[in-house]
């Protein structure tokens, strides 16, 4: 019960801070929009290519925009000097990590709620697009990014090149999930193929990396 209350307190505080500053949300939104606009212009002459590349472009936009939020989660604690407050409290590291994961998940999903309709407009999404399926893939894919990203963001706190390390570690580890996100999105966008395999891969990935992140939280949040 206590761990759940701690996680909820961390999540609520981070969401409240972001709602007041909107720093990460604005940076993420701007970056993601820029990617969509640039690629939609680049592919505009070829409707078929636009459709075939759509899933990849969408996840490139989400992935790089998410890096902004993931990097800020723990970096903000270090910059404001509040990390020490977390570390010297009796709260479990796993609960703190769960709360940070929750706030990152909400932040990235919030950006996607704005991004998906824009994607539909810029990429002329077909009328038969399965938006429920797209939302499911987006949720599972975002869960994977948030779970890994939160853990690696905490890990990079102990390094000098924090901003550089996060994408260098996060992106290679996330390759199976990214593959599933892109392929799953493509299936629901074009209506061709089966998404079940990719969904199962994403669910398995989410479970494994969420459990690993919580189990190893103590090691990355320990004091030096």
């Amino acid at each position, binding site marked *: 019960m*206590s761990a759940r*209350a*701690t996680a*909820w*307190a961390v999540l609520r*505080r981070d969401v*409240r*801070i972001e709602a*007041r*500053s909107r720093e990460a949300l604005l940076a993420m939104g701007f970056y993601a929009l820029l990617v969509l606009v640039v690629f939609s212009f680049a592919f505009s002459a070829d409707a078929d290519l636009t459709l075939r590349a759509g899933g990849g472009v969408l996840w490139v936009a989400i992935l790089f925009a998410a890096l902004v939020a993931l990097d800020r989660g723990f970096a903000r604690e270090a910059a*404001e*000097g*509040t990390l*020490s*407050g*977390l*570390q*010297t*409290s*009796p*709260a479990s590291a796993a609960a703190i990590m769960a709360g940070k994961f929750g706030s990152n998940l909400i932040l990235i999903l919030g950006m996607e709620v704005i991004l998906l309709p824009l994607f539909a407009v810029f990429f002329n999404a077909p009328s038969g697009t399965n938006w429920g399926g797209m939302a499911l893939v987006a949720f599972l894919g975002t869960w994977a990014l948030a779970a890994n990203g939160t853990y690696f963001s905490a890990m990079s706190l102990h390094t000098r090149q924090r901003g550089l390390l996060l994408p260098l570690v996060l992106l290679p580890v996330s390759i199976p999930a990214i593959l599933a996100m892109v392929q799953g999105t493509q299936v629901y966008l074009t209506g061709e193929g089966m998404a079940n395999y990719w969904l199962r891969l994403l669910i398995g990935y989410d479970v494994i990396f969420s459990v690993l992140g919580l189990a190893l939280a103590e090691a990355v949040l*320990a*004091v*030096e």
Partner: protein
Amino acid sequence: MAPLCACQNVSRFFGERAVLRQVSFACAPGELLYLGGANGAGKTTLLRILAGALRATAGAVTVGEAAIGSAAARRATGYLSHQSLLHPALTVEENLEFYAALFDLADARAAVRSALARVGAQGFAQRRAGELSQGMKQKAALARCLLHRPRLLLLDEPFASLDRATVSELREILRELRDAGLSVIVTSHQTEPLEGLVDRRLELEQGRLR
């Protein structure tokens, strides 16, 4: 009387550089202990180790009967560092409610009200921490330290950058806390506000106790 806090042969190295060398001392319940020394003597490092914010390279530290770093030791300790540990975008009350949740306090709102009243910070509880003056911020930070009713209070330069009136107010708060039976370990380059309050003085010199 058994000590509330005990350090035995505590050393801390940053790379090859020794900042603390085999420091041993104990602090009795209700004792106000002054920790002096020049800049770089290792005072902040020692307080951070006692607070569980830094690991000792060697030696043992206990608070009550709990080893440092354990949840029990953290519950027994309040630490006022150079930074307020309050997030500037949140109000003082929101910050304290957050820490009340981290410490799993049963009645968080009552604990926050009580801590704010204890340091006279009710007047700016609804203001964001980033908008506070240095004196207000220090009081709010002290309220955060007292929120979970610790038995040991660690104060690192509590009077730094404060005007005379606020120093005087903090001195009175410190006297009340000591009279209430709290053990306090304090470092400060300003010794006048502590006159008449200190039970014992320790002096660090290049990481060693003199």
